[in-house]
């Protein structure tokens, strides 16, 4: 028996190496509106400095998001868990449609999004993201990660991602993907928004990868979705108002 097992192990190296790539990653999402403001170069320096002086630490808020994954699929959505205990009399906001599904085998995306109060369904193929691989190592949620960087030209954001050396997967939180390991941390514009994995559960998934029963909205392509955002950012720039109150920061 042992011999057979040994032979199986010998001939199927994948088995030796791989643990089942299936489970959930919980990301702690931190948004800092003072830092978001700080990177809007079209706003006056005075008003940005004023905002960060008066709001500083207060401008930070935290939520949890979940990424469910199997070997070649992922689904990213808001978590019901609360990252910040709210005061008595906690108010519950209406939920907006938000889930991002990726199938890396078929190279497809299927996203339910809400943009300016309107639901949309984005269906497209996975586009390549131009990551630059850098030279730093650090640990995130028990995994040693390497870092990579890219620039989002639409929103003018510098994105630094940390991907696990030992979790072979092309997925990641939000719409970040395409690195040799699972993306466990993302930093946008030097801390304006950070997504950090704080819990990784390897487990068999039930139906977590399924899209919600009701998916609403107009079906559009990724370029069309980006076009709406581009138009909004342009308008807000003309008005010298922050654009991220109207459209998602990423």
């Amino acid at each position, binding site marked *: 028996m042992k011999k057979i097992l040994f032979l199986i192990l010998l001939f199927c*190296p994948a088995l*030796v*190496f791989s643990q089942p790539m299936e489970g959930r990653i919980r990301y702690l999402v931190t948004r800092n509106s003072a830092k978001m*403001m700080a990177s809007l170069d079209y*706003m*006056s*320096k*005075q*008003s*940005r*400095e*004023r*905002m960060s*002086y*008066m*709001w*500083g*630490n*207060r401008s930070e808020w935290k939520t949890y998001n979940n990424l469910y994954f199997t070997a070649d699929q992922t689904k990213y959505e808001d978590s019901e868990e609360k990252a910040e*205990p709210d*005061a*008595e*009399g*906690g*108010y*519950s*906001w*209406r*939920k*907006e449609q938000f889930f991002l599904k990726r199938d890396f085998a078929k190279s497809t995306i299927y996203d339910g999004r*809400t943009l*300016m*109060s309107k639901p949309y369904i984005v269906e497209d193929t996975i586009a390549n993201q*131009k*990551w*630059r*691989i*850098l*030279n*730093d*190592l*650090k*640990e995130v949620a028990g995994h*040693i990660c*390497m870092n*990579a960087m890219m620039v989002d030209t639409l929103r003018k954001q510098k994105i630094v991602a940390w991907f696990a*050396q*030992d979790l*072979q997967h092309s997925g990641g939180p939000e719409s970040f993907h*395409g*690195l*040799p*390991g699972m993306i466990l941390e993302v930093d946008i514009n030097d801390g304006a928004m950070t997504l950090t994995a704080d819990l990784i559960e390897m487990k068999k998934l039930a139906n977590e990868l399924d899209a919600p029963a009701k998916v609403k909205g107009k079906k559009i392509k990724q370029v069309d979705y980006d076009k709406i955002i581009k138009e*909004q950012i342009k*308008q807000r720039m*003309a*008005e*010298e*108002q922050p654009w991220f109150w*109207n459209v998602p920061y990423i």
Partner: protein
Amino acid sequence: MSKQLKTRYSQHFFKKTFFKQLFIENSHHSNINKTDSSVCILLKQYLHTLLTELLLMKRSLGLWIMLLAVNIVFAQNPAKVTIKGSVVDTANMPAPYPTVMLLNPTDSSLINFTRADEKGGFEFKNVRNVPYLLKISLISYQPRQMLLPAHEKEVNDLGNVPIKPISLELMEVVIRTAKSTLSIHGDTIEYDASTFKVPPGSTVEDLLRRLPGIEVDADGNIKSQGKDVNKVYIDGKTFFGDDPKAATKNLGAETISKVQVFNEKSEQAKLTGVDDGQKNKVMNLELKAEYKKGAFGKITGALGDQDRWAARGNYNRFNTKEQFSIIGFGNNINQTGVNWEDYGEFKGQNAYNDFDSGDFGFNSGSGMRFFYSEGGGLTSYFDGRGFTKNFGGGANYNFDNGKKSKLNASYTYNQTDLNLDEYSFRQTFLLDTSFFNNDTLNRGEFRNNHILNGRLEQNLDSNNVLIVKANARISNQDAGSSQSQFFSNSLEKANNRLSTDNDSNRDTWALTSSLIFRHRFKKKGRSFAFSAAFNQNQNDLDERFTTINRFFTANTFTDQIRQLNRDNNGSDEVKSSILYTDALSKKWFWETFYNFSQSTSQNQRRVSDPELNDQLIENLSLFSDNKLLYNRLGSGIRYSHEGVNLSVGLAALQYNLHGEFSRDEDQPLVAPAVDRTFTHVTPNFSADIELLSNLSVNTSYSYSVVAPRFNDLRPVTTFNNPAFRSEGNPNLDPELSHNLSAGMYFWDPASLSSMGLSMDYAIKESQIVYNQVIQSDDELGILSITRPENVSGGRELSSYLWMNRPIIKTKLSLSVNGSLRFSKNPAFVNGVENETKSDGGNISMSLSATPNPKLIFSLTGDFNLTNISYSIQESQNQKIRNTGIDGNLKYQFAKKMFLETNLDYNIFRNDRFDFKQDIPIWNASVRRIIGKANKIEMRLAAFDLLNKRLTINQNGSANYVERRISNTLARYFMLSLSYNVRGYENKLKKNNYW
């Protein structure tokens, strides 16, 4: 020409001549033999290596293009290549399962990646045959990168590719324990030393002893990975000569942000550029960019005609944890405080406070996250009447370390010297007659406030928070006023004149303090909160009264009264609240609260006669000793889920009032003590629902119970002015009302339009009103006696509507605001019920345009109408109309020159009295920003160019209608000079919100 350019140029030249030769050779020998071609390959390889080496160093696009060109020219390379190899460790043993990446050598962008097998073997099949940067990454090993030129054969076998391990210590201690980032630059591994904790006051040496891979012996000699470190740089520079210990023994550990250890080429190698293989271990200590600190501030001085002047300034210093600021102002142009923008910067991170009221339960406003902190005395509002001279200032300190503690402390002072002349006209209606007052008031007043404020928030741990806050205020008000009241029975003929001179001095001390403790249980949604508060008030007033009453009618005589009043009022209040919240499920919550408060107050009014040795005038003096006890117990359930927030609850409350009234302290009671107990049950309901993601509605109901005030319960009559007497009523009941509200809010994020509507309706089941008995009096002319009594039937409705909508995106927008108010308030006049109805509305429309960034203008129209009707004398019904038009223009007419002007035209009308007054106010200013950094601003401003300013108030209620006209600061000119450390913005400001 820079060195780099030179190199590039010579490369270019070399390539060009080489190509030329090659071309010539090729044309001469149409058949290139094999030797030639192998020369070509060798040459190409040489070029490749040269260029790629340069590329690795410089990463310039030019070189990349050249490399490409070389490949194109030597097009003998196969189009596709298979790259393979085996990753091994330093002992030549296979390194299993590394990730192997192909990067673009120009910018390290990822092109392809694979996972090697268990023997470290990897293969990229049939990839484009271009240069790559091959990168190997494996856990516990240093990432290795190597440059691969385009290959001349179809298979590029790299053979064994060794990778170096990262020492276990670095992995475990630096990455896992200290959570530090390892940066790898070639052979250098750098980590963030600031994540290693050392006790305060430690030296760099103490820090180094803790760093893995570094040893420090007893003498302070440093070794890194077993090798001596014989040089220490600080920020890349030599520190105190060559002794490495000089730096490590003297520098404080807290000043260091990074420790790097690397191999330095020998001096010889640096000089010649030829690597002689001799390497020294060198350490570099990178200094912290110290706390991110800064300072800003501005100062303004202004002088005007008629001795007008103004000055103000503020200065702020801050670092990542602390903010300190000072502010000051002074002027004689009716600026009683600083504007909100300056005050916000003064308070810094405490400009907005978390809502932390300790009064838990219904109507305590919980759920609101932020509110503007009180302006203290610094933002005190000027009501537009009179002339003032003002001074104020303060200091503020904030501390916030981001996690555990937040502290705010501030002190502010302000003073105002007021000089007011006011004329007022008033008609009072009786059953079938009315009488008139034509009054003039001259008042001089000096008031000042010292305010001390502190708040500490301490997170004891992640589940327990403690908030302690206190606010103390010391105020003084010294005033002298003389009022002359003409009473007449008709508009033409005066009846009598009552002149009152009053000198008063009031000292006030007020303290509010509270402590709030919140605890969260392990179970989600279960929490407990406790609060305790102590408030104290002391209010001492000395008044010196002289009244002269002069009659113009037949039986003329003059009556003079002089009296001294001394009021000493003090109260202490102790409060406490408890709140317990539990989650019944994910969506349902249950909460229970208890509020308790006890306040004791002593109010003393001593009236004495200065003409009789300040003897106490007993029938005007009063001493009261009061105690109010309040208990409330309530409970409710709440539903919160995805935009639906409902709550319903019930509370029982009880007021116990005990009041003892005597003529003076230690004197017998004038009447039996007032002892009243009121018990009520109050329901409460609220709903807040987001119907759509851009439409929300809310509604609420509450029942309010307000206990009568002790002053209204007193069993005796008091007066200051003999013509106006006020009685008390020990049998008063609380004010009870049903309050309903509803509202909705809609917005369209795409067009940036929004709309809102809100409505409040109060049904007054019981209301305390001051019923009047007005009669002719032989001695006084007209005598008014008021007495508080409970009446029912009062109603109040107010509604508010607003809308914003861009008409042309980013260029022209419209906003509309409107309100409607209806109120019905009954009161008895000489025993007959008079119902005063006041129905009013207001609408304001504003257009604002920004045709280009250098021009902004807006036009606002505002119309107010109030209809007042009196059931006892319908002929006296009033229509009061105020209309205003306001035009505003901002124009940047030159590079650093701005023109700002506005015209505010106000029309006041009351047809019943044929009252008409138009007040146009026109202001204009020109300013210029000076200096390279735009730090200086010069402004010439003209206020009220038409010299028309007057303050007019028109209102009517109960059984009177009133109009007050006060003079105030009219036309003046001012030249001001300002200096701003941060510089002024050299463009028009579109938004004032940020």
